[in-house]
């Protein structure tokens, strides 16, 4: 079966075949042994357990001590990341806004400060660009997923 994923910003296609209870991909084989536990066997016969859980569209996978967030995407979908839209990673409150609509900003420049989880977070420009829209003012409550600032490069 063919699956399209996104991991670390890159798209990957992964096709696994199933024969009896054994899944295979190239020299690897895999077997589901329990709820969220998959035994992955490498070409040399070395087998290790992977753990997986899906949250939203993302598969969280633990393998060999590392954790990967692997997003399931629909085949053929286009990359719909907004160009530089900065999204609140968690609910919180805007403490300070350092820029205004139309400002030119340099990569790394401080745009706004937000408080969440008892901490202050600096939101900085990921690249050089122009501020298209600042969506919140000082004191505003923001929800997880809210786009705080829109930028064009």
């Amino acid at each position: 079966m063919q699956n399209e994923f996104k991991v670390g910003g890159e798209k990957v296609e992964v096709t696994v075949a199933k024969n009896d209870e054994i899944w295979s991909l190239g020299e690897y084989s895999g077997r589901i042994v329990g709820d969220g536990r998959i035994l992955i066997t490498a070409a040399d016969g070395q087998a290790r357990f992977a753990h997986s859980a899906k949250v939203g569209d993302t598969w969280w996978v633990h393998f060999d001590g590392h954790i990967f967030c692997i997003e399931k995407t629909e085949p053929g979908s286009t990359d719909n990341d907004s160009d530089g839209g900065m999204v609140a990673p968690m609910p919180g409150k805007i403490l300070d806004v350092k820029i205004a609509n139309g400002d030119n900003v340099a990569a790394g420049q401080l745009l706004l400060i937000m408080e969440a989880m008892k901490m202050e977070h600096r939101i900085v420009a990921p690249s050089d660009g122009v501020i298209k829209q600042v969506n919140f003012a000082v004191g505003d409550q923001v929800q997880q997923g809210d786009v705080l600032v829109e930028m064009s490069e």
Partner: protein
Amino acid sequence: MINTVLVANRGEIACRILRACNEAGLNSIAIYAPNDAGTLFTELASRSVRLEGETIADTYLNQQQILAIAVEYGADAIHPGFGFLSERADFAQAVIDAGINWIGPAPQAIEMMGDKMTARMTMKAAGVPVIPGEEIDSDDEAEMVAAIVESSQRVGYPLLLKASSGGGGKGMRKVEDPDELVEAIMSARREAITAFGDGRVYVERLLTGSKHVEIQILADKHGRTIHLGERECSVQRRHQKVFEESPCPVMTEGLRSRMGEAAVLAAKAVDYVGAGTVEFLLAANGEFFFLEMNTRIQVEHPVTEMVTGVDLVREQLRIAAGEPMSCGELMMRGHSIEVRLYAEDASNNFLPAIGPLAIFRAPQGPGIRLDTGVREGDLVTPNYDPMLAKLIVWAPSRSEALQRMRRALDEFVVLGTTTNIRFLRELCDNRDVVSGRTDTMLIERVWPDGWHPDYEETTLDAALMAAAISESAGLHRAVVAQAGIESGPTSPFQTLNRRYP
């Protein structure tokens, strides 16, 4: 005598205290904010009472409401845990005024140790060594600046400005160059006023390359004050400890008894009662200096329990009830290490993370203790501190304890919320951690550009295959439906400072 203990806290430390009450045969009352309903600690109490209110101020910091519950349900003692109201002298006083036992030291001791400049002066007077530096007598901006500028010449550079009411790094400024001094004073003062409503700032020498070593003390109401050896907690990120151990790898018998004596002296200077911790900086040359005293049980208390065999929370309950402490001579054995499991992205400046604990599979086996407030299926929310649990190991030697910690971290699987498990695991392999050459700048020194996970391409391949199998076989759909909250690593955020709740 105590019959019923109200635990004015939540999460893992509430679990810890409630279990101690159960074992002591005491009734217990848990209080919980509405967003903590159904979490583990609410199950461990004889009775759980819901707090009204949405914010921390309305719930866990709400002195009136908590006292009213204590009175209504017949609590005759209150255990504040750490954080929240644990170092609020006014609350301790209110508890005592209501005729309820305060499980902690007298309000006066909390007060004297809570103000850093007062604590420093008290310690100096008691003969406890303090960091070279000077207290500044004035609260007036101009006078303060002038006084600090003058004393900076005696203290020397690099120096550290500290807010008298400070905590968690707020109002603290490192100054390397005399030219930066005045600006730094003004900035520290502004921050301290904002954070604590108190702009007093003083000056200390910045001791680089030193270790954070603290002494656990216990004092009962029968005149006995003892120390229980040290903990080293040098490995910190953003002034918060992540890796703690006992004994300190460079400790000697002689140094331990000198530091222990100083800590007992410090406790006696404020007529201390209960469990407390005296924090020191230990310089590379073996000199040590008073840093501050924490007048409560500490996050890292388990490592002391593991090596000394003393149940500190149980002793707190005994002492508050007026009994003598039960422990005998100090008998340290083996080595214990604690790591703090945070919901945070260690690869992005330790930014706190949220999400569901879709899988929370704790390590098991001999020599392992997990103090957790969460369990599989819980949601990590932005409402509270992101510390989820503490993983503690004990083994006969330090190298065996490190081996055990590695094994435990390898077994620990948490999915659905980003945690620092991998970071902690790699920390256990760091050369300086392995050799015990830990100091307070270790994390910045080892990862000056931040930590990033390092893995083979084949590891990612296997993970992709696992995801493909999981997706194709329709595994674990249930978690998706339950999870009402998105989670995952983020990017353009940089985290500044944390305030302890």
